[in-house]
């Protein structure tokens, strides 16, 4: 299991929202960095990193921790907040209760919200950032 597998499962959750296929890796946004196509009106950027989990007394951990961050971008602040709501609905089954994902047959802990940065002007767009943690 690699972070790529986790990335794919999480992007499936996000593409099931009104975002549809506008879920990209950094540097892969159409109309940007030499990519073909036009810059979408609203899109999300997904990134995953592994994070520290305190080991137990035998020096290991039973689960692997991950941190998920989604940057949601739109042309106005109003729309960016709406896209942020789509991201939240995609990752939480009811407000405050994150979904569990299955990667390679392993079921994760529920996605736990960690931090959110308010929507702000981001070059020619508006964006906000939300991070979640989970363990697999």
């Amino acid at each position: 299991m690699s972070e790529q597998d986790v990335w794919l499962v999480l992007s499936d959750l996000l593409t099931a929202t009104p975002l549809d296929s506008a879920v990209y890796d950094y540097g892969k946004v159409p109309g940007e960095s030499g990519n073909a196509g036009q810059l979408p009106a609203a899109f999300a950027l997904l990134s995953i990193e592994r994070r520290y989990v305190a080991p137990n007394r035998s020096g290991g951990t039973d689960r692997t921790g991950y941190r998920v961050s989604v940057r949601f971008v739109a042309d106005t602040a109003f729309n960016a907040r709406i896209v942020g709501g789509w991201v939240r609905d995609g990752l939480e089954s009811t407000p405050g209760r994150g979904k569990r994902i299955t990667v390679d047959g392993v079921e994760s802990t529920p996605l736990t919200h960690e931090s959110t940065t308010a929507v702000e002007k981001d070059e020619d767009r508006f964006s906000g950032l939300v991070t979640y943690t989970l363990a697999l």
Partner: protein
Amino acid sequence: MRVSVSGIPDELKRDCAKIPALFYQQGRRIIREDVADGGKTARRIARWKSGPHGSAYFKRITWDKSASSFVGFGGGSISGEYGPHAGGTPVGGGWRHGPPNTDLENSLDLIRPKFHRDVDSMLNSLFWPGA
């Protein structure tokens, strides 16, 4: 046969009376030390994770040198902060610039278990001195 109990309620009463003052004193020490540890950890992470354009960013991370406390209205809190100080050239961030900076979150992952253990053992030692 007789059972005689003496002195224990007085000792218990005396020990319990010391708890608020000890809590305040030890609580402030824990906050001061763990905020400093958190800040130093965040600095270390910011330094080794930095790319060519953020190589001096770690110097911006500072921490409270003493815990601040607020007491009033039947309760109180003891708090401290660490993190990058405001101002200076904006560094990183944004949808064109790649994944977000998670240095502070990574430092929290490391300091959180220590902080929980410190608070737990302080509370235990208040009620079971010497244990």
